[in-house]
């Protein structure tokens, strides 16, 4: 099972800055292990961000997004108390969704 994300969402000016850290190996599929065997690709493919349940940002990722991915974006007109939900799916079909309240 995957570990929870860390989501920080803070009001800044007329919107909110959202910073997300995800726990994921993001294996490229090019690396070889100590025994010389190729480690298969394992990476997040799709990410969505929702404000109070409505998708506001989405992304498709390849293997070149860094391990334990970090993403930052700005939601317009978001207020303290609004809910930000981040979800991801990886190429194994694993999913994860975490929520944070804008402060």
């Amino acid at each position, binding site marked *: 099972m995957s570990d929870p994300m860390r989501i920080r969402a803070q009001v800044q000016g007329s919107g909110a800055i959202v910073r997300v850290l995800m726990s994921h190996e993001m294996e490229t599929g090019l690396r070889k292990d100590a025994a010389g065997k190729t480690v298969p690709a394992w990476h997040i493919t799709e990410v969505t961000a929702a404000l109070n349940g409505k998708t*506001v940002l*989405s*992304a498709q990722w390849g*293997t070149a*997004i860094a*391990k334990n*991915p*970090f993403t930052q974006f700005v939601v317009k007109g978001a207020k303290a108390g609004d809910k930000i939900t981040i979800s991801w799916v990886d190429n194994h079909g694993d999913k994860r969704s975490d929520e944070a309240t804008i402060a």
Partner: protein
Amino acid sequence: MQTRRDMMTRSAAVAALLAGAGVLPARAQTAWNKAAFEARGVDAVLKALGIAKPAESPDIVFTAPDIAENGAVVPIAASTALPGVKRIAFLVEKNPTTLAGVFEFSDAVETSVATRIKMGETSNVLAVAITGDGKVLYAQKEVKVTLGGCGG
């Protein structure tokens, strides 16, 4: 042998193509574009994304370090005040697969995003912005990737 995953990604590729043509609404554009992510070279990626040849533009504000102490983690960001930009894609010219990621913006977010990518070697990195009506603009920067540690 065709797995379920292959079928899914195939239909995803179709959806992405339609999305690239602006046929589908933003909400439906999230299907993973396998062809684009496996493409090598900037031109091949643009083709797989179904977008026109981009023009360099100072309106795309692209932040990347001059030097990456570690190619495993390279912080980058792109933003634009231009209206109508729906997507920003990040491409690394010399990576084994060129496309790192595509971000898709609704009207509820600023057209701006920061992320961290992997780079195998010193390379040009591109931020390619795609508008709803098919205009494609980019900014680029060379990021030097350095060797580190004791080399062991």
